[in-house]
């Protein structure tokens, strides 16, 4: 039936076209547009957790999903009956509280009392949305606690959890700007010549003093605070390349000049701590062969678009291991051991680059850090090498560069496992075909942390990470004498 086939195709084309037109018309009428994630979101900081709520733009007004707003704060049971929206919210240890709204109406009820919205409640795809401007008040009523809402920046603080910072300029040579925080922070750090930008997504950082602080200093010219799109930023400007280092378990961030030899860029590894000899003397005298030193290089795995494992939908492995790496660095420093990070921000580095940079830095020990949501406890790995094709001498074959160091790597792994054991953390040591371990020309271990006991969120808890970091640092310190120092 060629004719009827052609006709029906034509009919479909016409109906499809008109339906599309109609659909386009409908969307225009109500003006509902979903925004791309990240661009338009509310960040909520509560004593239990920090999270973001995607916002919906309706008739030019931002709206927040009621379930997305309340679910992380307690248990939520929402029901829709026609245009009626009914939600029961139960705060931790409390009784269920009722919230009622009607789609397309601005009047509702919260805990039995009348509640007027500044704009109509929206029902869309089985979800209820309320104007962003009332989220703070509603949460305050439901949790019976103070809230603070930074409307323009789209940040909502529940309880008195705002985290303040201090700025302290030390006019040493080079100058250092100390950013102090009352509890540990883990911002992402972007550097470009003359500028270091710290972006805080999860921390409730607020400013108490002036938002712009100028300095009359040869290196550091100013620091400014800003907040927007659900995040806070501290921007430090200067006259030369600068770098950021963490100290005091993440409570202090030190901004200072980057060594001239290692310009800080987004792509390059974070600069290593200076060799112990003459750190304050940058004079360009002819170089003596540097003395051997003991440097640990920590490699927080993944980064950038490579998020590693999704520990939870909002917790990528790359963030967990960066936080852990900073803790390990700090714990090593406490034991008098200098350590550098292969990345100190959210940047992508290929596996081959990791090995190349590590071998160029000539560390006494390489530690790769991973995190996973399968299994339990901590696994310490040394390299499982591919079948050896050893060259006579001199150059190490790339694929089996680790072969010459396997015994030392095994000693470190055993020592770290013993420290984990003494802290009663479930652990195991194994060989693994993990890249780029086989390419590392130095003693090398990898540590993969899994949640301590089933609860996946625990993997990012300060207490757990601190225990793991202390175990690693103590394990390294215990075998330090066995590991040769290396000339840079």
């Amino acid at each position, binding site marked *: 039936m060629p004719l009827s086939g052609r006709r029906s195709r034509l009919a479909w084309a016409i*109906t499809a076209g*008109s*339906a599309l037109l*109609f659909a386009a018309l409908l969307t225009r009428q109500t003006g509902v547009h979903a925004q791309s994630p990240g661009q338009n979101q509310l960040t909520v900081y509560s004593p239990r957790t920090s999270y973001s709520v995607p916002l919906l733009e309706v008739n030019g007004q931002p709206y927040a999903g009621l379930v997305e707003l309340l679910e992380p704060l307690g248990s939520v049971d929402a029901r829709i009956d026609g245009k009626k929206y009914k939600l029961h919210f139960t705060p931790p240890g409390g009784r269920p509280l009722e919230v009622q709204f009607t789609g397309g109406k601005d009047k509702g009820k919260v805990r039995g009392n009348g509640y007027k919205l500044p704009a109509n409640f929206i029902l869309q795809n089985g979800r209820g949305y309320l104007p962003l401007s009332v989220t703070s008040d509603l949460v305050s009523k439901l949790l019976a606690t103070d809230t603070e809402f930074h409307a323009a920046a789209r940040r909502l603080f529940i309880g008195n959890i705002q985290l303040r910072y201090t700025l302290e300029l030390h006019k040493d040579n080079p100058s250092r700007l100390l950013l102090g925080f009352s509890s540990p922070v883990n911002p992402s750090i972007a550097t470009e010549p003359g500028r270091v930008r710290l972006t805080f997504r999860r921390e409730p950082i607020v400013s108490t003093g002036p938002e712009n602080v100028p300095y009359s200093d040869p290196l550091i010219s100013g620091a400014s605070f800003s907040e927007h799109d659900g995040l806070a930023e501290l921007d430090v400007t200067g006259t030369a390349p600068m770098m950021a280092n963490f100290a005091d378990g993440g409570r202090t961030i030190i901004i200072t000049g980057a060594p001239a030899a290692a310009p800080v860029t987004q792509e390059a590894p974070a600069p290593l701590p200076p060799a112990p000899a003459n750190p304050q003397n940058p004079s360009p005298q002819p170089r003596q062969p540097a003395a051997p030193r003991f440097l640990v290089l920590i490699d927080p795995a993944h980064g950038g678009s490579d998020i590693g*494992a999704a520990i939870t939908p909002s917790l990528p492995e790359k963030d967990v291991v960066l936080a852990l790496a900073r803790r390990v660095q700090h714990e090593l420093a406490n034991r008098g051991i200098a350590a550098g990070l292969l990345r100190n921000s959210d940047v992508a580095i290929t596996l081959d680059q990791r090995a190349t940079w590590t071998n160029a830095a000539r560390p006494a020990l390489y530690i790769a850090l*991973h995190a*996973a949501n*399968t*299994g339990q406890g901590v696994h310490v790995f040394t390299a499982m090498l591919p079948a050896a094709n050893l060259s006579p001498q001199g150059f190490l074959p790339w694929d089996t560069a680790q072969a010459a160091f396997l015994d030392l790597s095994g000693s470190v792994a055993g020592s770290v496992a013993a420290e984990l054991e003494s802290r009663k953390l479930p652990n195991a040591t*194994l060989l693994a075909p993990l890249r780029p371990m086989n390419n590392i020309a130095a003693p090398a271990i990898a540590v993969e942390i899994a949640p301590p006991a089933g609860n996946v969120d625990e993997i990012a808890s300060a207490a757990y990470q601190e225990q793991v970091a202390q175990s690693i640092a103590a394990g390294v310190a215990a075998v330090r004498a066995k590991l040769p120092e290396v000339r840079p």
Partner: protein
Amino acid sequence: MTRRVLVMFAVLAAIAVGLGFYALHLKRKVARDEQLAAEQQRALAPLSNGPPTTVTLYIASDSDGTLRRTQVNVTLPPERTERDRAVLRALFEQYLPSSSPHPIGAGADVRDVYLLGDDTAVVDTNAAFADAHPSGVLAEELTVASIVVTLNANDSKIGRVKILVNGQERETLAGHADLRRFYEASNIGQVVKDMQ
């Protein structure tokens, strides 16, 4: 709005609803067809007539990071590489349910197994095997080890195994385990002992 516009709106609305139903119908049909095709493919490839053979599988467990030796009955085709493939498919069968002790992501399959010489097997997996595999050092190592040891247990001449994804070499399985190398069954065997 004029009467004419209202009528047009009503007609268009009716068409949109009708089209929606048709789209739903099409979507269901496509899903049904795909499922049928997958089932047919599964049924066709590994099975042949003949008595079931007992094969040995080394099944990984994420919770304690071990491989457990298990035996199952599978009807094996006569040809050696087809047999190796059927053994690996029986292994994947254990991993596909989300309730598995070591789930490896939906749709994972072995496209082909071929031999280099007498002792080296090249296992060509499909894209879903790597793309949907859980990311992690231990999780990926367990998968690789269970493939290598299971192959060796059922075809003892296989001493080396290389894993391809969709006919191509990959750098890693899901960010961790090296897939550029050949795995030695003896080497992995030692690791499996360490795991137990």
